[in-house]
């Protein structure tokens, strides 16, 4: 629940003015509805009384009928404006939330980032946020408008009809409505939460079934997985049915409450009219107003029954937003750092809970124009050393110096401007070759793009495919493994980093191409300090210094 409140505060802070206006219009809509029915009921009954009394000709018909028209048109316009304002404000706030979540993911620590599952992240950014639209639109704003309308109507009815009718209606609607809605909220919380969890289980199990269909079939698990997917949907439907039943029951009780209070207003009005304390027309007004007041509580039932689902979504969104960023994020001292060298000073890395360190103490100094290759068997810590140098993992002990400043003093932007890592599994995205390359350097000219492609011996391949406008499919489809590898290197070269970190840069390339690419990299960045994690002889030959890790 506190997560729901936090999300609402975020929305509120982002869109305070339109939401306030929307809430005000919401009150206008409800009040106009009450006034419309009240005035027309009064008008008809009063007109009938005047007609019966034979004084019809002197009855002022114009003011009541004009106000009926005004209220009807005003309500329509106010409702249109209210819906437009509140929906637009909510969608705007959600767009902001989505961007902030994505930024949160971009800052997430490497350990967490590498284990995030794509479909789940996508769920956070889309379904979870969508699930929250009921919070402002169907819960908080209607609640505010409903209570305000009840209180204002109470004051007006008290003045017109006396305390008995006004208090009966106000207490009945606010008290009764609160009891029903709180009950529905509590009773519906668990099923709506279950339904949401089951829906997500359904989704992720179905994705597993489709993506690992072959594996599952061979290991005789396809039938099991199918049953698990169907079971998740069954659980979801059962929970949804329970939630819907609660929502309908709340609707039934609210409907009965509305009829009951309208009846009460009618009875009180009739009694007061019989005793002459109230004119028949005013007695009718109370009844008609009560009919309209039902509108204040009825729309809330759905939102209340959805609280479980919404708070689940809210908790995940808040979690995503408050995920800890990198330590470099907080630093403001490094704005103007420049660096051309990298130094490791007895750096170790020990993954929490692991039996042995992922990287035993490592020291070296890498100067501009030098190429240093870290060699050693798989698991010796080559990739870990690169991740440490790129600031993706915090060193357990020792210090990494970038120029004259320790690595943690660098802020993210400055660090990325000076140092680029090409990870082992570099990822490409759908889009043209030009878009792929300019992701890292938006201002690069076509000549610069071709130069980078030339450095990695890819220019002819791309030219044959149709040049820089050649479109890559999803995840860079359309290129072979080796071509993708070279394209990701070209993308990094365009940033002209002072320090370039390469994790097995020529994996998947034949030896001749590998040699061409390696020399192309050096030719393109003659002054860069280059650190590689390598096991191929061609890479080790190319390096100035080879450091063996064991």
């Amino acid at each position: 629940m506190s997560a729901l409140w936090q999300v609402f505060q975020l929305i509120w802070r982002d869109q305070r003015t339109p939401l306030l206006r929307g809430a005000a219009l919401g009150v206008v809509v409800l009040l106009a509805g009450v006034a419309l029915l009240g005035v027309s009921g009064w008008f008809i009954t009063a007109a009938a009384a005047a007609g019966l009394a034979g004084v019809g000709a002197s009855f002022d018909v114009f003011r009541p009928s004009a106000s009926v028209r005004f209220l009807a048109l005003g309500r329509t316009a106010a409702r249109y404006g209210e819906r437009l304002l509140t929906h637009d404000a909510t969608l705007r706030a959600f767009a902001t939330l989505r961007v902030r979540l994505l930024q949160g993911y971009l800052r997430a620590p490497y350990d967490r980032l590498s284990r995030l599952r794509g479909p789940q992240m996508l769920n956070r950014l889309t379904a979870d946020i969508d699930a929250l639209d009921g919070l402002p639109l169907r819960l908080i704003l209607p609640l505010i408008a409903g209570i305000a309308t009840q209180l204002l109507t109470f004051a007006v009815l008290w003045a017109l009809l006396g305390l008995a009718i006004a208090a009966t209606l106000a207490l009945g609607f606010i008290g009764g409505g609160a009891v029903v809605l709180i009950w529905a909220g509590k009773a519906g919380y668990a099923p709506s939460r279950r339904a949401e969890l089951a829906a997500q289980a359904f989704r992720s199990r179905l994705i597993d079934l489709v993506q690992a269909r072959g594996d599952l079939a061979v290991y005789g698990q396809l039938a099991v997985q199918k049953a698990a997917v169907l079971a998740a949907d069954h659980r979801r439907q059962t929970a949804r049915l329970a939630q819907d039943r609660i929502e309908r029951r709340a609707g039934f009780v609210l409907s009965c409450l509305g009829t009951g209070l309208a009846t009460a207003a009618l009875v009180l009005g009739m009694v007061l009219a019989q005793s002459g304390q109230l004119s028949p027309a005013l007695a009718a007004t109370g009844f008609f107003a009560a009919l309209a007041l039902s509108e204040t509580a009825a729309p809330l039932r759905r939102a209340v029954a959805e609280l479980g689902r919404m708070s689940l979504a809210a908790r995940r969104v808040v979690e995503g937003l408050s995920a800890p960023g990198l330590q470099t994020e907080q630093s403001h001292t490094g704005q103007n750092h420049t660096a051309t060298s990298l130094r490791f000073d007895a750096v170790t890395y020990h993954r929490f809970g692991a039996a042995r360190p992922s990287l035993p103490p490592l020291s070296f100094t890498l100067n501009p124009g030098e190429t240093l290759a870290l060699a050693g068997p798989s698991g010796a810590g080559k990739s870990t050393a690169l991740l440490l140098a790129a600031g993706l993992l915090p060193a357990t002990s020792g210090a990494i110096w970038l120029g004259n400043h320790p690595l943690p003093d660098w802020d993210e932007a400055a660090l990325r401007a000076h140092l680029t890592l090409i990870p082992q599994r570099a990822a490409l995205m759908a889009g043209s070759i030009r878009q792929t390359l300019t992701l890292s350097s938006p201002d690069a000219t076509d000549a610069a793009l071709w130069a980078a492609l030339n450095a990695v011996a890819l220019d002819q391949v791309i030219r044959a495919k149709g040049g820089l406008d050649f479109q890559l499919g999803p995840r860079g489809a359309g290129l072979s493994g080796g071509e993708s590898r070279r394209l990701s290197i070209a993308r990094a070269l365009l940033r002209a980093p002072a320090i370039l970190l390469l994790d097995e840069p020529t994996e998947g390339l034949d030896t001749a191409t590998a040699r061409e690419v390696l020399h192309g990299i050096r030719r393109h960045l003659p002054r860069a300090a280059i650190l590689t994690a390598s096991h191929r002889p061609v890479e080790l030959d190319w390096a100035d210094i080879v450091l063996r890790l064991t």
Partner: protein
Amino acid sequence: MTRQTDQATAKVLAGMIAPAQDKLRWAAILSGLAALIWPAQAALVATALAGLLTDARPLWSHVAGFALLGGLRALLNHWAEGLAFTAGQRVTSQCRAAIVTREAARSDGLAAGPLAALAAEKLDALLPYVSRYAPARGRVMVVPLLILALAFWQSWTVGVIFLITGPLIPVFMALIGWAAQAASQRQMAEIGSLNDLLVERLHALLDIRLLGAGEAVATSFAEAADRLRAQTMAVLRVAFLSSAVLELFAAIGVAMVAVYVGFSLLGLLGFGSYATPLTPAAGIFLLLLAPEFYQPLRDLSAAWHDRAAALAVAADWAEWQAQSDTPLLGQGAAAARLAGRADIAVTGLQVQLGPRLLSLPDFQLGAGQTLALLGPSGSGKTTLLRLLAGMLQPDAGQIHVAGQPLNDQTADGWRAGLGWMPQQPHFLNASLRHNLGFGRGGDLAPALAAVSMQEVVASLPQGLGTRLGEGGGGLSGGEARRLTLSRALFSRPDVLLADEPTADLDALTAATVTAGLMALAETGCSLIIATHDEALAARMDRVIRLEPLV
């Protein structure tokens, strides 16, 4: 969308809803009945209020009748809503079951993302349509006609007002409905493209960050999110505008009735009714009826928007249904191993791959023998492995396994003795323990030790309880590959099918994997290995070279 495909889609939608027709009919009947109660309630209140004007004895029985009928109306609505909801659930859960059943019985299909979106989210858009549209239609059939008749009975003028203003509503509804459908198609397209964009970005998060492109990507995402907001608002604006227009028409109608009734009651108008002047009871009665004359039409038009969304889903559904199937042999369920030695004999296999007919060489492999399939990419190595696992059916030729033809009856039993190493590991959204053993008991340690993965697994945050990213994120490519081998080892197979087990691995890791494979062969397991790796192929008893396709 042309008119013709529009009608085709409407037919698809009707087909999807067919199983729920019975329930929906009852929902429509109950909902219609509930709406018919209002005129009776209105008559009771009108006479009770009119009684006040004539100083007769208060009609308490009418008041009590009003309250009781109100309760009955709420009850009928409650039932109708329940029936409509379960009808909607039946539609969505049957569609989901159809998706899961078909996807589990074929070897290829739509990508997981769009499929999950269709099954998990889009189908839910049918719920509001199914549960609201039919009851609203039920009400439209009876309520306006009955109220029209009642109005003509009391006053022909009011009847004429209804008769003129009523039909305007469906006309406007249709006009606006078309605009709404176009807008919601644009919105659906925008949602799709935003999702695609996100999937790509989320997949490449680390690269984006390393290239310092975080801000640029966040900005372009913000623009895309804002475009989606604009499209969504376009849909909503049409919806809000249409309901405002309908409300306006209804309000004008009600105001005309109120003014006519008021003037009549005052005796200022001498026409339009049969009793002159109109009696007070009739006047109040007509006023209470007026809004209810328009309400069903407004409900139907609101449901019209749900219909637009449902049609979009139906179009997706039709597209999914139209896909051609490549069925999987057997159920993919656990089964007893086939009796007899695990010999394999392949004769005259041909498979249609898109436009190309792939012919595969004949061979026989005795139990315990090892075989390498060598050949360039696209020569059919993976296809042959999939045929041998019964994941694909040949268009011609036969596979005999353990002396029996490989078919629907024998496939599960055959696969019970198979091990499988796919080229791209996929990890289920479950613990590593489940991913390796699929819930079967037993000690995983020997299978992990055989591929030197014990230490790596121990250094994961929760060891065997860790949930990996779907592609094995958190591990290197070689480590993920070794895990799929240890999964195969754990199932103690008679035959292991491995697709490129050493591709993209460094020499040392490749040697570890090769050693693991050879150790398995020592135990009497047959190996069939698709590979480019000549060194690995040389270790096998036999080599088959597949010809490149022309």
